[in-house]
């Protein structure tokens, strides 16, 4: 893990260090409901999850293991999933990422990308399957465009997070 050196004489406040990643993920979750885009089929990738994974894979010690639950709740409320969907799926993803971290000696950029794609696929499939419980009958093919967008967008999101992280550390 790279160590960021704050400016001399300035230590970023603890509040700033902890609030920025969380605000970042919640803002990403809220983005689809803020954008004035009216679509007929799911097209935007799960931005909240991509940002969560980006931060988690960048800073292992940033969050406790259960961070998927509160941030997932925020995502459920903002995105329109049945409440509890992302709480359940994000927590499982966080536990899985933790397990992978314990197994892998070295995690390359490609590993991060693969983890993000698999996690997105899991979340999107899980979201559709859990929506069947609520009486929907959406087909699983619907997630293919979203998965593709997620895979293409993740490298960009990692760079955005790196920028924000640098700003976060430079008090």
């Amino acid at each position, binding site marked *: 893990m790279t160590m960021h050196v704050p400016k001399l004489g300035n230590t970023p406040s603890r509040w700033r260090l902890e609030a920025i990643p969380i605000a970042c993920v919640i803002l990403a979750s809220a983005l689809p409901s803020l954008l004035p885009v009216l679509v007929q089929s799911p097209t935007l990738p799960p931005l909240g999850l991509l940002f969560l994974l980006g931060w988690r894979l960048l800073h292992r010690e940033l969050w406790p293991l259960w961070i998927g*639950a509160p941030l997932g709740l925020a995502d459920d409320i903002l995105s329109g999933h049945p409440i*509890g969907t992302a709480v359940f799926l994000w927590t499982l993803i966080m536990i899985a990422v933790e397990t992978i971290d314990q197994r892998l000696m070295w995690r390359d950029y490609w590993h991060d990308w693969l983890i993000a794609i698999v996690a997105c696929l899991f979340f999107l499939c899980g*979201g559709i399957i859990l929506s069947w419980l609520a009486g929907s009958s959406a087909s699983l093919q619907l997630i293919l465009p979203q998965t593709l967008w997620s895979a293409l967008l993740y490298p960009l999101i990692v760079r955005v997070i790196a920028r924000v992280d640098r700003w976060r550390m430079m008090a």
Partner: protein
Amino acid sequence: MARAPSRRPGVNRRAQYGLFASYVIAITAAIAGLLMVVIAAADPAGFSVIRSTTSEVTRPVAAALRSAVSGIGSLDENVFAYVKAGSQNAALRRQVEANRLKIIEAEAIKQENVRLKKLLKLTEASDSEVATTRMISSSSSIGRRIARINAGSLQGVMTGMPVRAPEGLIGRVLIVGPNSADILLLTDSQNIVPVRRAKDNVPAISSGLDDGTVEIRPLSAGRNPFKPGDIMVTTGTGGLYSPNIPVAVIVSIKAGTATGVPLASPARVEAVMVEQPYEANIPAPPQPATDTDQPAS
């Protein structure tokens, strides 16, 4: 990235308990999440207060952005028209489409008249409109097809009210907040609308496929009566949508069903109207004289 220092705390008992507790919290939270999904499935309106509150927060931003980019939904159409046959094409095509819809509606109304004359003289309140508003955003990252409109309970919108555009049916109101409401679009698989073919009365059921199209399933057994180009309008059966709102045009035929495309595309409609549920418009039938139908005993 190099392997990060392990979370495994070694022999420190306190740290071991902390790690164990974080797993317990995470797994409990996951199970609680699953339970919430089940509860939400059983009682879809249960969590609607939370969602409508957040929609109040995001509404101003979405509404402002929507008014800033209004018309971007038809941008592709305009560009295409220019490339194809010059700038008039888009306007002309839109006019033809409007005329076609008017003809469909007139045809349907004519039919309706014939039928109604045979039936009782039901009077229908003409002003069933509750609010005219704009759609400001939609659930673009999830499987359910939900859009948000810029009007809520303060404007008289209530859960279950039908929403339509001049071009056709949009959906019905799902969750209402003070100034915004979520609507379940026609293309959601949970939105089931009784329809009939506009030119004759072949009845069918329209249900969304979640990908921008609807499935039209004929009610009568036997061979599929539909062919591409057929226009479906609402029947009014079930008492939610008033009759003769254009719903979809059939584009392809499968074995027992047909696939239709909604006539009102949420991305292109400028304004939507929230209406009273249809059954609320029908006055109660006149009370029969009580002395005549009392059996003599």
